[in-house]
């Protein structure tokens, strides 16, 4: 249990590791979804290709969009990109850095799905069973073209009455599976090599700019969080003051009608300071508008 708590705390410790955590979870969810999904090839000439390729490519798109939605930093980046200039310049390098880091993380789950699909083989067998050259396989070599399409389309369905003990079906299936797994492993190898090179060669190019971009993107994220927390704190104090004033005015009304009741002590001076002079609706609205339209310059000297 302690381990669980430590893991959760570790992932909450900073926004980078939160994003890595979400990325990992989505990758696991992607594998789980694939294993739970009941793949059933239609075994009909045109439907096979549509179904096979659909299952290989539509879920990755959905997973990619899901990663973008779940990742808080994508919103922060969009806000930074679209905000009016105000007193603070926009640094395109920072926005580019944030964008690339978001997209890299979002690509993990879709790639995991595609690789798992290829290594398993069912999708490719279903999609390309009709595109195989029938001359290579004994059972399909001397059949008329129309019939051969129908037969090849039934290859992915092991339990079909025509295909139950057909050795040519097994041959086609093995052939396609071999291609599928070769493709899967190659993609995996290429991606790992690219990631490795990118990580190792990055310090050779523009390391200083990278450090700056990373620092300021972190800063923007933290600033956003603290602004939200400060707003929450402010609204709590605002509400407290509002209610106290309400009670005070009720007390004053009662004072007018009956005996004087013992008054309460002075309100805490500290809370006046925390409200920082922002004490009505118009002022709060103005504050929020100015925060959006004219962010203050990055200069606290």
């Amino acid at each position, binding site marked *: 249990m302690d381990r669980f708590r430590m893991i959760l705390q570790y992932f909450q410790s900073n926004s980078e590791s939160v994003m890595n955590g979400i990325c990992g979870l989505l990758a696991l969810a992607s594998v789980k979804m694939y294993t739970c999904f009941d793949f059933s090839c239609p075994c009909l000439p045109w439907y096979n290709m549509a179904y096979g390729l659909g299952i290989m490519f*539509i879920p990755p798109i959905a997973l990619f969009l899901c990663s973008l*939605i779940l990742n808080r930093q994508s919103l922060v980046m969009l806000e930074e990109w679209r*905000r009016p200039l105000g007193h603070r310049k926009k640094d395109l390098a920072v926005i580019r850095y944030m964008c690339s880091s978001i997209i890299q993380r979002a690509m993990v789950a879709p790639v995991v799905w595609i690789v798992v699909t290829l290594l398993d083989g069912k999708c490719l067998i279903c999609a390309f069973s009709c595109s195989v050259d029938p001359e290579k396989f004994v059972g399909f070599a001397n059949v008329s073209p129309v019939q051969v399409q129908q037969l090849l389309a039934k290859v992915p369905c092991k339990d079909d009455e025509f295909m139950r003990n057909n050795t040519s079906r097994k041959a086609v299936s093995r052939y396609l599976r071999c291609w599928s797994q070769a493709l899967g492993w190659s993609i995996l190898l290429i991606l790992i090599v690219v990631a490795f090179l990118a990580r190792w060669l990055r310090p050779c190019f523009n390391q200083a700019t990278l450090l700056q971009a990373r620092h300021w993107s972190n800063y923007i994220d933290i600033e956003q969080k603290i602004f939200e927390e400060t707003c929450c704190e402010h609204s*709590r104090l605002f509400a407290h003051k509002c209610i106290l004033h309400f009670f005070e005015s009720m007390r004053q009304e009662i004072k007018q009608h009956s005996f004087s009741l013992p008054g309460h002590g002075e309100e805490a001076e500290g809370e006046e300071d925390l409200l920082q002079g922002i004490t009505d609706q118009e002022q709060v609205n103005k504050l929020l508008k100015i925060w959006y*339209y004219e962010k203050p310059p990055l200069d606290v000297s």
Partner: protein
Amino acid sequence: MDKFRILFQFLQSNQESFMNGICGIMALASAQMYSAFDFNCPCLPGYNLVYGLGILLVPPFILFLLGFVMNNNVSVLAEEWRRPQGQRGKDPSVLRYMFCSMTQRAMIAPAVWVSVTLLDGKCITCAFCTSVPVETLGNASRRGLSQGEMKQVLARIPCKEIYEGQELVANEVAVRYLRCISQALGWCFVLLMTTLAFLVRSLRPCFTQAAFLKSRYWSHYIDIERKLFDETCAEHAKSFAKVCIQQFFEGMSTDLAAGHCHPPRKAPADVAEAAEKLLGVTDQGTMNTVLKSWHRCKPPLHLHPPALLSSNGWAGQKQPPVQPPVPQSKVTAYYSHV
């Protein structure tokens, strides 16, 4: 169990993640409910469509309503919508924001049900088995059946044990066909939902960010204000009750001292405090009288100041008209410059 508790604590760390937690739990519950549900296609021509579409569409509607019920903010929204204007104007954009965010969260569990149903395939197989294209999949001309009879035969596709149309169209072929269509619809639905969610989330910073910040602030404010008000009232009621009860006991003790001519016993110094706390009630008979009085003749909700009490005592005094200092509705005075 421990893991559950830690997960709960993690999710409760702030309001947003609490609501997201509830969403996630409902989505999981929705998937679990589907797998626990025992689907039984009726295999009759008219009933199949009704049953299949019913299972596809009615539980999501129920889950959607449940999503609203389980959301604490529904009553806040309703209160804010129905309150009289008073001295505080109503902002429709705040109401819209609250409603939109509740609706978005309530849509997740129904979307999960519909996706899982479509990806599983049983509902669509049951609902549309009579619409299978027999010409392409099988041999329509073989048996020379009328429309009605063909529909009867096709309606039994989901029920393999009683299906007699094997030479018309093979059962596995039809089931595979319908399943393929169902799964394609399912994945398209999932893609559509994620695209919509993505668009809703990403278009907001491009167009309405300033208005969004305002609405979010004031909707949080309304929620916090309500909670703080309840807390303040509870604190007030506690102090009120303490003083009220104290005065009651003091009144009873004065009464009993006057009635029975019992001088208050002089307690030694070290137990003086305890005796003070007993407020003059020191034996069973007295206590019973006190309790009976409390039940039959509760004091009015009016805290007279201490000066008045010492001069007039309790019994027989005509109380001033009861005016509960408990806070009234929002229509009455708000402090104007807040």
